[in-house]
């Protein structure tokens, strides 16, 4: 045996900074073909889709703002946002955040990071930031691509809001951007669920699927009848609550509540993922995850957040019912009809009537009873809208609408006569044919707004 040249002191190496670990994570993420493909798809796909669909004779009228895609490029950008919230964002959070920890387990590469970075805390931060950065790039791509596709295909024209009022192109642009920013909060919640699944389930493919699975379950939950306080306590509501930006006044209550709930979910899930990660023993590199861990660190804490959020929202707003009440539906419909009637009059007769002149009222009933005071979602709402005809003394017009009200407050009003008001799909105007704004339109009931009735 020989003497050696090992130094007498073996200093502990300096820890690698978060910034360097973050760059390392980005290099790895961006080297993956599926991430590159996603980036390409998100930056090109929405623009092409919006530009192509906007030129079609048949529009996706069952999608929010879809019926306005011929009229303005901003509608296409919002259709992209709606579709992204339902399907795309849960999927991309799965691919990016749901795999960011488990990929190291699968590839057996933890020791590179651990030996070099020497801090699970820094590794966690770097991984979380890197996955969020990629998600942000993907979301920015979808937003910009959708806007560019819409503007290039149709142009920047005024957008009809969800209460029928016209937004100038500048306001529409600002609101579209703000809507995308609002969707960041629930995306963060799903991303945090992805991080949690990725840490808790290790090499198991379930970790990768968790955000998509959670996204679908939460989305399905939004379709169920439940108290508004519980609905808003689910992070999936924030994928819809941006709709409130397109009414006047803006429905900020649900928007802020949904965003706060989503951020609380994001913080809780991230904290649980962090706790699990820093407590992990890395001697055994094979981490196949455990259902018990998912329940203890995922399901139970998030169920607690849901319960507390619902309790706080119910206490603060009193929204213990569905939030869809007769007077709110009537008010929303009357307001929107007034705005759209004004639009129709302008297109048909170049009349500049005002909502104040029209003095629109609506009388709605649910379940076949026109006077029923009951509320709640359903496609059996029937409303009679009345308004004063401008320039004709004491003459009143009436129109019938069938309403399909979703549990989340959105509704579709379908004209049921008279024909000259809402019976024709198209209007013959002096500048050509245009869609009749009163034939069918989308509206929104504020679930948290106090009812005007005692």
């Amino acid at each position, binding site marked *: 045996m020989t003497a*050696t040249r090992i130094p007498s002191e*073996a200093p502990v190496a300096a820890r690698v900074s978060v910034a360097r670990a973050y760059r390392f994570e980005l290099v790895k993420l961006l080297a993956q073909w599926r991430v590159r493909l996603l980036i390409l798809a998100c930056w090109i796909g929405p623009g092409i889709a919006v530009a192509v669909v906007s030129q079609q004779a048949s529009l996706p009228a069952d999608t929010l703002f879809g019926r306005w895609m011929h009229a303005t490029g901003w509608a296409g950008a919002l259709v992209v946002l709606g579709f992204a919230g339902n399907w795309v964002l849960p999927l991309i959070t799965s691919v990016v955040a749901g795999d960011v920890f488990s990929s190291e387990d699968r590839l057996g590469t*933890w020791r590179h990071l651990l030996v070099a970075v020497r801090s699970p805390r820094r590794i966690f931060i770097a991984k979380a930031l890197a996955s969020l950065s990629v998600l942000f790039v993907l979301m920015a791509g979808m937003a910009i691509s959708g806007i560019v596709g819409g503007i290039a295909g149709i142009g920047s024209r005024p957008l009809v809001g969800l209460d029928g009022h016209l937004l100038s192109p500048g306001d529409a642009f600002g609101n579209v951007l703000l809507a995308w920013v609002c969707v960041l909060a629930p995306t963060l919640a799903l991303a945090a669920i992805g991080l949690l699944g990725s840490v808790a389930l290790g090499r198991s493919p379930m970790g990768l699927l968790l955000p998509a699975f959670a996204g679908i379950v939460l989305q399905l939950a939004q379709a169920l009848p439940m108290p508004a306080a519980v609905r808003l306590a689910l992070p999936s509501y924030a994928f819809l609550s941006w709709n409130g930006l397109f009414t006047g006044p803006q429905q900020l209550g649900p928007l802020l509540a949904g965003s706060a709930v989503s951020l609380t979910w994001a913080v809780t899930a991230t904290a649980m993922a962090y706790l699990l990660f820093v407590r992990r023993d890395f001697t055994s590199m094979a981490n196949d995850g455990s259902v018990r861990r998912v329940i203890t660190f995922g399901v139970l804490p998030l169920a607690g957040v849901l319960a507390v959020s619902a309790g706080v929202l119910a206490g603060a707003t009193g929204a213990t019912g569905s939030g869809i009440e007769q007077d709110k539906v009537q008010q929303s419909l009357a307001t929107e009809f007034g705005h759209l009637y004004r639009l129709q009059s302008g297109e048909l007769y170049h009349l500049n009537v005002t909502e104040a002149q029209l003095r629109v009222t609506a009388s709605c009933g649910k379940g076949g009873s026109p006077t029923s005071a009951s509320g709640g979602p359903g496609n059996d709402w029937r409303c009679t809208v009345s308004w004063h005809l401008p320039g004709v003394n004491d003459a009143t017009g009436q129109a019938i609408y069938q309403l399909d009200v979703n549990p989340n407050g959105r509704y579709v009003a379908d004209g049921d006569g008279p024909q000259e008001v809402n019976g024709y799909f198209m209007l013959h105007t002096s500048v050509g044919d245009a869609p009749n704004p009163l034939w069918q339109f989308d509206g929104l009931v504020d679930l948290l707004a106090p009812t005007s009735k005692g």
Partner: protein
Amino acid sequence: MQIEDITGNRLAVRARGITKCFDDVVALEAVDLDVVAGQIHGLVGPNGAGKTTLLGLLLGLAVPDLGSLEVLGMPAGRALAAPDGVTGFVDGPGLYPALTARGNLAALSALRGPGAQTANIDELLEQVGLSDVAGDRVRGFSLGMRQRLGLAAALLTKPRLLVLDEPYNGLDPAGKKHVHGVLTRLAADGATVVLSSHRMDDLEALCSEVTIVSTGRVVFSGPLGKLADASRALDYRLVTSDQQAARQVAAATPGIRVIDDAGARPDSEAFAVRALLPALDELVPRLVQAGIAVRGLTPVVSPLESAFLALTEQQESSR
């Protein structure tokens, strides 16, 4: 602080009574280990013996539940605080398949930062024989190529203690030769290498000392020669010019037992005997005197393999 063994050799690793459990499973139990600095030390044992756990502790991925562990003079007080210069891999080379061979090394080098002393990437690829595929994505690499790239990644930081878990897995003879050369040069330059294998023959030509681990306990630790001396009678395959006569001579020689089943493939031109070396020394002259030419005399299982099997089987049967 320098640490030395009782003969004054500087130690790169000193473990005393270390125990590591995973829930109810005792992976290591009261393990003592001395690794002399500047040597290649083999860690051998059957699958599940605790080798990877022990190597993980040396890498600083975790700390023992009980006992003391000093690596390069530093006590292992907490996880992920291994001294500078300790590197290696456990549970496979751990590479990023979406990156090229050079990309993997470049990313790892960048992770360490400009202040860290890292080796030249092209030189490393040359050392492990992967220069020709430096620009290829690791996704398409064979296991042997991944092992060699994993070794290059471990050498990136100019290690003073290199810890390798099963580095010979999947390597062809040329690959083994490459790895062998790299590790030998590294030890010659003063670094210490601890590598594991479940095959003694991988370690025979490379290691000065070995530690045999079985079911979480050390059953032997020391120089290879000492292990061979401690072994029992071995089985030898004997090829002669007259098998019939040779069997009769062997059977008549004291200390020699002719065996029909020694694990060797059936061969009409050979037979097996079980003997200690002195008896074997007696047999060969007797065969020559009887006019029988000895054409081959080789151990069926290497002495070290035989000792390893004996020690590990003994340990497992005692539990």
